[in-house]
C-alpha cells in the first residue's frame, strides 16, 4: 500500500512538472513538436532522479533537507536540462537557457505553493 501511494505521489509530481513546464514553453513560444518532446524527455530524466535522491535522503538521513538544499538540487536540474536542450537545439542556446530557467523557477514556485513543504 505504501509503495502504491509512493508511486502515485511520484507520478503526480512528474505529470504536474511536465504540464507546468510545457505551459511555460508554450508561453515562451516554443510550440514545435521537437520542443514539446524535448521538454517531456528532459523531465523524464531529471524529475525521477531528483525525487529518488530526495526519497533516498529521507530514508538514510544523509543531508538535512531544507529550502537551500532543495534550491541547490533544483539549480542542478536546471543546468542538466539546459545542457540537454542546448545539445539538441544548438542554434538557440540563449533561448534554451531562458527556457530551462523559466520552466524550473515556475515549477519550483508552484511546487512550494501547492505542497507547502515544512523545512
Amino acid at each position, binding site marked *: 500500500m505504501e509503495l502504491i501511494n*509512493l508511486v502515485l505521489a511520484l507520478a503526480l509530481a512528474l505529470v504536474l512538472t511536465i504540464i507546468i513546464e510545457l505551459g511555460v514553453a508554450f508561453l515562451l513560444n516554443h510550440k514545435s513538436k*521537437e520542443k514539446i518532446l524535448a521538454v517531456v524527455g528532459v523531465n523524464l530524466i531529471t524529475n*525521477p532522479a531528483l525525487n*529518488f535522491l530526495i526519497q533516498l535522503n529521507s530514508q538514510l*538521513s544523509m543531508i538535512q533537507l531544507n529550502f537551500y538544499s532543495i534550491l541547490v538540487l533544483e539549480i542542478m536540474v536546471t543546468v542538466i536540462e539546459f545542457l540537454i536542450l542546448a*545539445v*539538441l537545439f544548438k542554434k538557440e542556446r540563449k533561448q534554451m537557457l531562458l527556457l530551462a530557467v523559466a520552466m524550473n523557477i515556475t515549477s519550483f514556485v508552484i511546487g512550494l505553493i501547492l505542497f507547502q513543504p515544512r523545512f
Partner: protein
Amino acid sequence: MIQMNKSILLGLFLVFLSTFAFADVISSPLDFAMPIGILAIMGTILLAIISAGIGIIYYLYIRLIKRTNLTKEQKEKYKKSSKKIIKIIAIVFIGFFVLTFLWIILTPPHGGRPNPIASGLKSTAPSGIGTTQEFLMNPSDEISAEDFQNNTGLDVNSIFFCKSNNLGSTGEMLIISSANNISSVKSIATTKIKLNAKIICKQTNLDTNHTLGLANFSCPGIIEYCGDTQPCCAIVLQKPNN
C-alpha cells in the same frame, strides 16, 4: 540502436531482478527494514522512466541531425558520437542505481540502512550525551533494543527508549514497552513521524534516574531493568528543533 536497446533492457532486467531479490532478503527479518524494499522497487520504476526519457532525447537528436545540412558522412559521425553519449548516460544511471542499492544493503545495521540511532549509540556509549541525526518512523514501524545489540556491542538490557516532553501529541502515537526486559518503540501513527533522539549513556545503573537526568522523560523499564554492571543508555525520542 538495436544493440543499445538490448544493453539497456538487459541492464534494466538485471537491476529489476537484483532489487527484488534484495527487497525480499531485507524485508524478511525486520519490519523496520521494509522501506528499503520499497525504495528498491521504486528505484527500478524510476530507472525505467529515466530510460524512456533518454530514449526520447536520443530519438529527437537523430531526427534533428537528419534535418541539418550536414553531409552524409558528418551525419553518420554525429550519430555514432551520440550513441556513445547515450550509452555513457545509460551506464551512469544504471550504475548509480545499482551502486546505491549495493551501498544500502552492505552498510549495517538492519542488514543495510545506516541507522542514526545505532551511530549515536556507538559514539555515545559507554558514557556521554549525544544527539542523533533526524530519522523517520513509518506507520507500524517497531524499533527494539535487540536491533542495536549486534552493531553497537551493547547488551539489550543496556538500551532503553524514552519519550521527550517536546513530542506533544505525537508522543501518543509512539508506544514504548519493555516486555521481557527488552525495550521497544512502535509507531501507531498513520503518517510518517520525523524524529531525532538524544542519547544519554552512563557507565552503570547507579541511581539511573538521577544520573541520567530522566525525571522529565517517560522511560518505561529503565529503572527496573537497566544493567547494574553494564553501561545504561537512554534513547530519548524527541521532535527535531527545525
